[in-house]
């Protein structure tokens, strides 16, 4: 491939690619996100290829492995274009039937279509599925249409048009103005206005300047940055190149954790391809502007998602934060001005360039514009990645997109913003989600994790879990975070173990304040959030633990006993079969009983009983 030397050459390449491709030729796309990988999508792709070869259909159908479609609950997902027929939970055995019926005869296979669990209605097309209906997939939409390892796929759907627009018809100051006007705020957690960050870096003295893409996503249960870098790496690169042109920088880094092998691989492939096409490297598109991107693989420390610790890690030092100011925009990597933005923020940039700031700022709320990708996990029917406009309510996400809570259990809380976010109660279900509203409620946007909890979740135990995670991930540099988290976790453990004392809640609040005020970086400053929000919204649960030695949600093992309600028990034996410690005895169709001496309180019987005969006291 010869390097592209002008915007016109890029456009003619786009036309050429689109001309070569027959739009009416059926194309089978198979989701290749991490979730679908776990379901075995690779076998499905290979199966399709083999079957097509066997039936000699090479000229009448294409197969394309794509990035993540988001509906991870129902993987592996297969979408057949041009119509967009949506098949879910496709197995290798289904392949011949799909080729025979759907491709050759244009017939639908009923059982592979998505069926709504409540209405029992089946949806044919992707956009009809309730999970996708309410979403606004501006950033994520192309994921399902392109092969992440093919730059031609990205160019075909309009890729790199924003870059040539920014390079040849806009001045850096105009780009900053446009980004500022769009109201784009950093998607990594802090929500700092991106345009302002770029401007202060552009104005900052010192050279060379650097640019970093933060792909060190480490929250348990969050994987949107990973899916974006895996599924559409070129959109991130395009954003970065525009950013580099704007601030006048020639060296960029993608800091990605090594535990994301597919993201690392796809990013490397994308960089190589962009270099081959003259979209990266020396003299980009003949503009005379140089920019190169290096991949820096992180060792998986949560704290390295914090910008100053990340910078230290790239420098080859310990991943430890330092005090801001000076902010990285003034003094960052090797003490030079550095712009550091999250994967999702970079992916938003081409969109703003293409469609304009006015269009972009029409989406969202007063203070938060555009869309946000959330990873919807926990006790939810439709686990997956959802992209929604800012200002949507939790209720819409959880009940309309997420399909509610399994077994119709009662909603209890939702943890937003990862382990250092907060847990919000039912009363805030109708809160419009944006940066400021979440902070006001005591939580934060974070990178966009959303963990749904039902009434079988103990809030004290949940706070203890997140604190233990943060305690382990604290770098240990500053005292409040290192020592304070340890003490807080010990107190929470005491409460969960029935050793809570009066005054513990107040002590937790006092240590929290020391962490918020005293810690160096965001990890320590936000670490008490899960504790503070659960105390704020679920104080009664703490008090029940401390005063009555009881766990209302029946989770804390030291405070509960399992028993069988003989009146309700049908004697089906389901509990007896799952009991590992053989503590349950009873004849078939006769009420069973639990031997408390043998019971290890694992809760398996509680989960297994269909008649709610197992009671916890």
């Amino acid at each position, binding site marked *: 491939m010869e390097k592209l030397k002008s915007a016109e050459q890029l456009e003619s390449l786009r036309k050429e690619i689109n001309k070569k491709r027959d739009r009416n030729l059926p194309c089978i796309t198979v989701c290749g996100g991490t979730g679908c990988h776990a379901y075995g999508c690779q076998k499905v792709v290979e199966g399709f290829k083999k079957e097509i070869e066997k039936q000699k259909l090479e000229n009448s159908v294409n197969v394309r492995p794509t990035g993540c479609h988001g509906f991870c609950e129902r993987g592996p997902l297969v979408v057949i274009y041009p119509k967009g027929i949506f098949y879910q939970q496709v197995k290798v055995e289904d392949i011949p039937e799909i080729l025979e019926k759907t491709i050759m005869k244009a017939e639908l296979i009923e059982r592979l279509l998505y069926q709504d669990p409540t209405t029992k209605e089946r949806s044919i097309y992707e956009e009809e599925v309730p999970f996708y209906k309410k979403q606004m997939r501006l950033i994520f939409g192309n994921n399902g249409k392109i092969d992440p390892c093919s730059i031609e796929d990205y160019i075909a759907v309009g890729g790199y048009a924003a870059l040539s627009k920014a390079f040849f018809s806009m001045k850096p100051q105009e780009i900053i103005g446009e980004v500022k006007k769009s109201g784009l705020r950093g998607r990594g957690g802090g929500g700092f206005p991106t345009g302002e960050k770029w401007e202060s870096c552009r104005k900052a003295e010192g050279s060379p300047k650097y640019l970093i893409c933060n792909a060190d996503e480490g929250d348990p249960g969050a994987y949107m940055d990973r899916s974006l870098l895996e599924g559409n790496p070129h959109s991130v690169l395009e954003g970065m190149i525009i950013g580099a042109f704007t601030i006048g920088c020639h060296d960029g880094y993608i800091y990605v954790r090594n535990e994301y092998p597919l993201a690392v691989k796809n990013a490397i492939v994308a960089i190589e391809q962009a270099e081959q096409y003259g979209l990266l490297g020396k003299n980009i598109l003949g503009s005379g502007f140089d920019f190169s991107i290096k991949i820096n693989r992180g060792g998986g*420390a949560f*704290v390295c998602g914090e910008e100053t610790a990340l910078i230290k890690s790239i420098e080859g030092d*310990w991943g430890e934060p*330092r*005090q801001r*100011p000076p902010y990285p925009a003034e003094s960052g990597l090797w003490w030079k001005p550095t712009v550091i933005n999250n994967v999702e923020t970079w992916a938003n940039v081409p969109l703003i360039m293409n469609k304009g700031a006015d269009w972009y700022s029409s989406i969202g709320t007063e203070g938060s514009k555009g869309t946000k990708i959330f990873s919807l996990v926990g006790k939810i029917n439709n686990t997956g990645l959802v992209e929604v406009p800012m200002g949507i309510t939790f209720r819409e996400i959880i009940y309309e997109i997420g399909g509610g809570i399994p077994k119709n259990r009662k909603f209890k809380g939702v943890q937003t913003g990862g382990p250092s976010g907060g847990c919000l109660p039912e009363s805030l279900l109708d809160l419009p989600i944006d940066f400021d509203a979440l902070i006001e409620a005591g939580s934060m946007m974070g990178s966009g994790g959303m963990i749904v909890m039902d009434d079988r979740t103990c809030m004290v135990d949940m706070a203890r879990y997140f604190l233990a995670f943060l*305690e*382990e*991930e*604290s*770098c*240990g*540099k*500053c*005292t*409040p975070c*290192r*020592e*304070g*988290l*340890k*003490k807080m976790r*010990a*107190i929470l453990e005491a409460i969960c173990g029935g050793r809570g*004392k009066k*005054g*513990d809640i107040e*002590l937790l609040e*006092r*240590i929290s*304040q*020391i962490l918020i*005020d*005293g*810690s*160096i970086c965001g990890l320590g400053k936000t670490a008490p959030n899960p504790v503070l929000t659960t105390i704020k919204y679920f104080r009664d649960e703490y008090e029940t633990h401390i005063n009555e030695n009881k766990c209302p949600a029946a989770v804390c093992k030291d405070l509960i006993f399992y028993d069988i309600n003989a009146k309700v028990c049908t004697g089906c034996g389901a509990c007896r079969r799952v009991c590992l410690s053989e503590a349950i005895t009873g004849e078939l169709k006769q009420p069973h009983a639990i031997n408390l001496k043998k019971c290890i309180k694992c809760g398996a019987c509680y989960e297994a009983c269909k008649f709610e005969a197992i009671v916890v006291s």
Partner: protein
Amino acid sequence: MITLTIDRRKVEAEKGTTILEIAREEGIDIPTLCHHEDLLPYGACRVCVVEITKGKRRRIVASCTYTVEEGLIVETNSERALNVRKGVVELFLARHPNVKVIKELALKLGITEPNPRFNVENDYCILCGQCVRACKEIVGANAISFTERGITRRVSSPFSETAGDCIACGTCVYICPTKIITMKDVEDGGLVYPGGRDSLGPRRIVHNWKVSLEMEKCRICGRPFTTKAKLEFMRKRSKVPIPYEELAICPTCKG
């Protein structure tokens, strides 16, 4: 020059001065643990926190790392700052109840004993990092470092084995505020094994970094006074060529 207010006093300071430096110049006492005048600001212990007002925003910062800005209002003993300082010292006291500097600081802030609700431990290293930073910034040997993270963080030689780059200069021993790094000169550092003993001559041992280095004798008085490794290090680091023989003269004989 930058004008700022510190504890209601208007003061002038040069650009790049930290709040701690200007406060000390003004005779305002801010306690510190990890700070050392000869080392770069680190900001880890959080004992030196102060409350600053910048425009509408009030926040707590470490005075040792925060450089002065025009119009900044600093309160070194505001309630909020004192709350953090006391809290931090309380946390320190629970982990290091027998360390002199911690006990003294706690008493100064009116804390007499560890909070009964905390598990009291008995660690000595307060993780101020002065030894690590002195070894890096002053000596340039980079022989020791922090290892592990969070609550298990500690100072160690590489892989907890013999610190290969240590020259046994004793800077870490001297700078440690808790005096838990120990060094000893022995007349005959021998290797003892079943059935015998090898004599290795005069040696200097740094226990914490598992180092035992050969001593060099003074060329004039013949007394072993420092390690060969240190003299070699000095010779290599020196910008002007100094013959090794000239370095191998003890301070007493040099006069």
